[in-house]
């Protein structure tokens, strides 16, 4: 496993009496995408801001690229991150090039113009360099914003709602860019509401609702909540075979049409289920794993804490 470039330990942030994030611990390794998923007000943006060194946690520790983030080191530590905010936040009266050039200068890059050209090429905007930022579509603005986050080649990328408000083609382009960042070996922390996007992009998903409810790969998250569930298709009405499954320890089943949905304590029980059905006279057409969608898992997790 590559070294973790971003480590957050026991982060808590309160605004007066309201706790926005409580005891959050997560890490992101080089070449890994971790998505923070949660409802509005779950603490996603607060988490991003803490990790970006924009606001201090009330308690807990953050390490960016092996440098502990403190008030004294924040300026230096911020060099390790590129932040994409939900709103592109461009200077709309200025050209795309001047927007990026300002950031290249702010980062103290030795050859700012060349770095701007490289960043524009990376997001496919070389031919729009001299356009006014205000004249670009939302999708193109977001691409300029990601070029801005990449201009100093940071090892850690923080992307807050990167596809929010984008049309499907622009969102697809943005997701491709994010996957490219993983290939480049960056540690990428994404915050999103979009479950499908989280599932598609993420190596791991952190479900957050003030506290961290779960942190694992999408497959493991689904497995963890749904246990082992199989769908068995039989010839004819499935309901008549329900009694034959009563002898399987820990199994529970439901029937709908020709389909039986069976919850089991583990995969080892599947042959026993099939044998019991066949012994009772059922003609089994097929047996399928039947996992819950990530949406069900998410709603289950978040619903339990709301």
């Amino acid at each position, binding site marked *: 496993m590559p070294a973790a470039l971003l480590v957050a330990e026991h982060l808590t942030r309160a605004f007066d009496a309201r706790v926005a994030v409580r005891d959050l611990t997560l890490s992101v390794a080089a070449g890994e995408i971790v998505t923070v998923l949660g409802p509005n007000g779950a603490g996603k943006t607060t988490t991003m801001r803490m990790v970006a060194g924009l606001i201090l946690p009330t308690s807990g520790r953050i390490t960016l690229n092996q440098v502990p983030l403190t008030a004294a080191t924040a300026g230096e530590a911020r*060099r390790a991150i590129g*932040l994409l905010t939900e709103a592109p936040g461009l200077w709309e009266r200025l050209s795309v090039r001047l927007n990026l050039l300002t950031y290249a200068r*702010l980062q103290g890059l030795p050859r700012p113009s060349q770095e701007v050209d490289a960043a524009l090429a990376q997001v496919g905007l070389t031919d729009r360099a001299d356009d006014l930022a205000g004249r670009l579509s939302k999708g193109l603005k977001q691409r300029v914003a990601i070029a801005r986050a990449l201009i100093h080649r940071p090892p850690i990328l923080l992307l807050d709602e990167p596809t929010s408000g984008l049309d499907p083609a622009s969102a697809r382009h943005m997701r491709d860019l994010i996957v490219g960042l993983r290939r480049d070996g960056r540690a990428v922390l994404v915050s999103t509401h979009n479950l499908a996007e989280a599932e598609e992009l993420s190596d791991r998903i952190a479900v957050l609702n003030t506290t961290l409810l779960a942190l694992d790969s999408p497959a493991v998250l689904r497995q963890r909540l749904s246990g082992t569930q199989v769908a068995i298709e039989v010839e004819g009405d499935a309901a008549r075979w329900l009694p034959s499954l009563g002898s399987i320890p820990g199994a529970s089943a439901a029937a709908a049409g020709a389909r039986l949905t069976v919850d089991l304590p583990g995969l080892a029980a599947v042959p026993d289920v099939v044998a019991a059905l066949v012994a009772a006279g059922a003609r089994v057409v097929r047996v399928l794993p039947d996992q819950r969608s990530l949406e069900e898992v998410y709603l289950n997790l978040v619903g339990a804490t709301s």
Partner: protein
Amino acid sequence: MSGSGLAWHRVLAVARKDAAELARNPGAILPAVAMVFGSLFPAFLVVIGAPMIAGESLERSGDFAEEAQAAIGAIPEIAHLAGNALIQAFLFHQFSLLLLLVPVVAAMALATHAVIGEKQSKALEPLLATPLTTVELLAAKTLTPFVFALALSWAAALLYVAGIGLVAEPGVWRSILGPRSFLMFVVLGPLVELAALQLSVIVSSRASDPRSAQQLASLLILPITIVFVGQLMGAYVIGPAALLLGALGCGILNALLLWVGVKVFDRETILMRWK
């Protein structure tokens, strides 16, 4: 979260960006340019226009002859003049105080746009996620408006002198180029401007649109106007000593505003409040 040192390359990066934005935003520059003409016009109206309309020179009307004579102690630059020229020089000196409004209005107009523009375009969060410190941001937000407003106020002063040279009695324009004007435009002017800038930036960090910020920051116009009106009514004549005293007061005010500005410009505070 702010570092201790001031990295000028970062200050200049933001200041250059602000200058480029300003150049493309006539709406922000217009009040400042209008103020130049607004501050020049009354002097020429009273000293040149009114006597022309009345068909009688200032000397003959006798309105200002005594005051002009009495002002020689405070404004020795006019001592070598006599008659109509003395009165004109005296009045042009009196009205020159109005030119102090140019750097104040220009600074307020430009600084409020520089700060609130960042709020409105939501550009602050990515900006603060760079190594830029809050003190550097404060310096950058002050630098471009300071240079621009100073250039404008000096241009206004040059126009004033050039206008006097064109329409006033011979020798009057030269009397303007003395220690009093030097103190007013090179010492007091920049200090008043800096105070206006700092006040504007502080107020802008709490306001959400340029107009409300400018209204609050325009508090600085009031003392200048009061001093001007008092002078015009003959209550006193502002000489070099009074200008030096004003400069000292402005210096203290600037130090106080700098202290407040650094406190207000806390990274987390601006991020949470600048919405």
